[in-house]
């Protein structure tokens, strides 16, 4: 098992290297650097000045070298011009002699965000924790609901309960976040439409709307009221999806011969479902659930923008929109990391669920 995990981690590192290089290459395309030069120095630079600026800021070296610098395995560039030494690792105005030779993500130096004028590492930490809370609540709501719905509808295929729950889950999974988000806001967080005016009329709510239309306040203090709508928006889509998966797997298991064996052993129906079917039925949806984590990371882009919740997705939009190379790279590293870790967890969990798979 340990050998397996180590092996997997090694593969992970390799994958992460490849993926980050691709992102690095794409964000560092010449056109991007030109844009960066213009936005950093002056929008009306001549082409010559742009080239000069790019050279002066260490962007003219080969891509692989710059990638190495960014990783921190190649010494950062230095450049002495008119007696002033500048370099990747030398903060402006500090003594070049004191600066370290390497400064990449391995040294914990994630660079400086051009949009937020802050070190990237602190931005990522803040935003990620904000998104982390959002994801946690989404998972806490989505997974149990989806599993219950899936198992209930899958255990008696074609029953009325199955049909009802299937309609719900198909509808919810067919509604993307930007639709359900708008619908939910219109229903619960609008002073003119939905149920809020009606409730306000009866004096049942103190404010104008039942739920606030933004989740900005949740950055400091999460409450049911400010968080319910964004969580529901994301969870709704995923719930339907996982529920469909669970249902498919459950219906298949319920027709398996060993379920008939159990039934003809005299096991009662609830016990057939709980003791015999459930574990086997969870094997397939488990992978899907783990795949939801990376998917959530991009799902939050829309919801965070919609509810003005300054999390990871919102940051990603800002970074991409403003050509913030360092921040964009950091975001992609995080995304790659999340994908790989969740897949590792899913593989390990799979082994525990399915005794037929044994890793040597």
């Amino acid at each position: 098992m340990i050998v397996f995990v180590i092996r997997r981690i090694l593969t992970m590192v390799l994958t992460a290297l490849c993926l980050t290089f691709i992102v690095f290459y794409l964000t560092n395309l010449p056109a991007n650097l030109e844009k960066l030069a213009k936005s950093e120095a002056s929008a009306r630079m001549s082409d010559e000045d742009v080239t000069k600026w790019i050279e002066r800021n260490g962007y003219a070296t080969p891509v692989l070298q710059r990638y190495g610098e960014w990783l921190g395995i190649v010494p950062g560039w230095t450049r002495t011009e008119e007696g002033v030494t500048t370099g990747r690792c030398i903060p402006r105005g500090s003594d070049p002699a004191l600066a370290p030779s390497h400064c990449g993500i391995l040294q914990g130096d994630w660079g400086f965000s051009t949009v937020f004028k802050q070190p990237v590492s602190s931005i990522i930490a803040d935003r990620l924790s904000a998104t982390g809370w959002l994801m946690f609540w989404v998972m806490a709501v989505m997974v149990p609901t989806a599993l219950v719905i899936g198992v209930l509808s899958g255990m008696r295929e074609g029953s009325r309960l199955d049909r009802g729950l299937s309609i719900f889950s198909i509808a919810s999974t067919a509604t993307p976040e930007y639709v359900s988000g708008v619908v939910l806001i219109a229903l619960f967080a609008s002073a003119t439409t939905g149920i809020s005016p009606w409730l306000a009329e009866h004096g049942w709510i103190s404010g104008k709307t039942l739920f606030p239309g933004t989740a900005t306040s949740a950055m400091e203090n999460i409450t049911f009221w400010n968080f319910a709508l964004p969580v529901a928006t994301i969870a709704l889509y995923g719930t339907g999806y996982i529920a469909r998966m669970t249902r498919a797997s459950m219906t298949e298991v319920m027709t398996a011969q060993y379920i008939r064996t159990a039934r003809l052993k005299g096991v009662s129906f609830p016990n057939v479902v709980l003791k015999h079917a459930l574990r086997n039925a969870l094997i397939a949806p488990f992978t899907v659930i783990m795949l939801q984590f990376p998917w959530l990371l991009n799902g939050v882009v829309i919801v965070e923008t919609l509810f003005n919740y300054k999390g990871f997705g919102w940051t990603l939009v800002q970074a991409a929109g403003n050509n913030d190379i360092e921040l964009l790279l950091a975001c992609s590293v995080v995304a790659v990391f999340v994908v790989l870790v969740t897949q590792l967890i899913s593989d390990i969990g799979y082994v525990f669920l399915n005794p037929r798979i044994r890793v040597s």
Partner: protein
Amino acid sequence: MTAKTDWDPTKPILEIENLSISFFTRLREIPAVMDFSCTVMPGEAMGLVGESGCGKSTVALAVMRDLGKNGRIVGGSIKFKGRDLTTMSDEELRHIRGSEIAMIYQEPMASLNPAMKIGAQLAEVPMIHEGMAKEEAWKLARQIVADVRLPDPDRILRAYPHQLSGGQQQRIVIAMALMSKPALLILDEPTTALDVTVEAGIVDLVKDLGEKYGTSMLFISHNLGLVLEVCDRLCVMYSGEAVETGSIKEVFDRMRHPYTQALFRSIPLPGADKNSRPLVAIPGNFPLPHERPPGCNFGPRCSYFASGRCDAQEIPMEVVPGSDRHATRCLRWEEIDWNAPLKAAVKTEKSAIGRVVLKMDDLRKYYEVSAGLFGGGAKKVVKANETLSFEAHEGETLAIVGESGCGKSTFAKVLMGLETATSGSIMLFDENVQSTPIQKRNTDTVSKVQMVFQNPFDTLNPSMTVGRQIVRALEIFGEGKSDEERRNRMLELLDLVKLPRAFADRMPRQLSGGQKQRVGIARAFAGGAKIVVADEPVSALDVSVQAAVTDLLMEIQRKNKTTLLFISHDLSIVRYLSDRVMVMYLGHVVELGSTDQVFSPPYHPYTEALLSAVPIADTHVTKQRIVLEGDIPSAMNPPPGCPFQTRCRWKSKVPGGLCEREMPPMKTLAAGHQIKCHLSDEILNHMEPVIKIAAE
């Protein structure tokens, strides 16, 4: 359990009266079982025999009241210990299932929960029905596991189903059924998925346990030989009806229904021979449930059919007087001369054996398997074929016999060129094809060596018409100059396999299993094949169809002088049609000789056990009972010395533990009869024949 006490043990344990079951689809009601009656007395073993689709499993599931959503009992009653099961509530049924009626299924792997430990699955039964404590239940499970003769019960209880072999799994399923000492055991084809030697062990176990616990049994099988071994009485079913019922002796020796008679004539019994006494196939096809003929269901295929009588009314079950509950569903049973000898079948000349067309010399095929999941660890070598040497002649049928995992399929793959041999040579005609994979063989060689596959259901492309598939084969083999010519050739091939020409435009799904296999044969012979490898060509087919397909193969062989390599595990059919037999065990050829030489002493110990394991549906045959202990060793980790030494009952007769140390050499006993065994000639010469046919 009050029900267990207030019941008179002289009364039948199971009484099915006029049971009718239908399945309801959107289109129509499909009657699956009609007017079925049978009684099972305490301690009695009742056999239900019939071809697939005759409704025998439906009867079993009806007894368990587990017909699914679409199935419904539309008439009659099923009385278990005097209580009618058809009117019971789910709760009452739940108390009976598993505790008083238990069931054993066809596929043991599928009927055990893959994610639960064996012990938990076994212990569950008494915990549900008797409220037994967990520890006690596990203790009982341990005892029952020992009862079904499984080694190392503690380890087995802690294992998951996939860690056991097929035979062990079936023993666990039997143990599970016995956990609460049921009064009635339903066995639905319990050994169909298992090898013959394993089957023999399971059958022995079932019989012993039946005697030990006094359990009544309902034994469902399509194999008449097995029913003869296990049951006291039997009931033959055809197309949803019981057609004949009675004690084993009476039905086997004095059958009174044409279907039963036809069934017996279509299975290869020891006396049958392809040239002098060929099998008689039942003409026509099994009627679909919604297309049953009026009157007698068997009428259209019956050779005693009298129009105006047999198709005029429903045929009732009639008791044969002067017998023990022997009854038949035939109007004419009193008029038919049951002792009339078989109509003189067309005797055919034995085809002449020609020159050598295939010669294998010292062929080996090893597979390298890596031990670790990621290619790490030590490489292991699976020796799928070891020192295979033999010759096959033109017009000859060479049977290759052995249980699963003995390397017979690998051998076929190597010959076809799907795999290349590790060493040794294969001479096809005068060409060495040993290391030529099929992609590199020329069309001529490919079309000369063809294969008929085991499962006709999977080997035809479901989205291409039958004719198109054969034409496609002709195109690939480069037969015919124009489309017109190829189409004509295709129609001729359909004639050859005795399919109507109209079938050319049909899709495979519109064909029955036997018809599909005929298409498979036509495809194999499309390029004028000289050598045909038939890999269990009839084992997926019903008994009555088997005979027809076998005869077809024989006929084409005679016509084309084809060499037939017949791979099979069914020794009855091998004895019937082959000229020479090669017995394989764990990659080695252990015996090779003419059919007579192999089927009579002296035997190789493995051949002897194999012969003894085959159930024979003939009451005149007495067999020596040899049950092999344990399973076939893994080819990954073969035993040292003789591959068969771990299960051989003659091992003690060889002095000095030679069997465990040295691989026996191939020795020649008589002309063309080779055997790989350390036993001395003296012992070999004193071997008793396994099968004896009593004088009539």
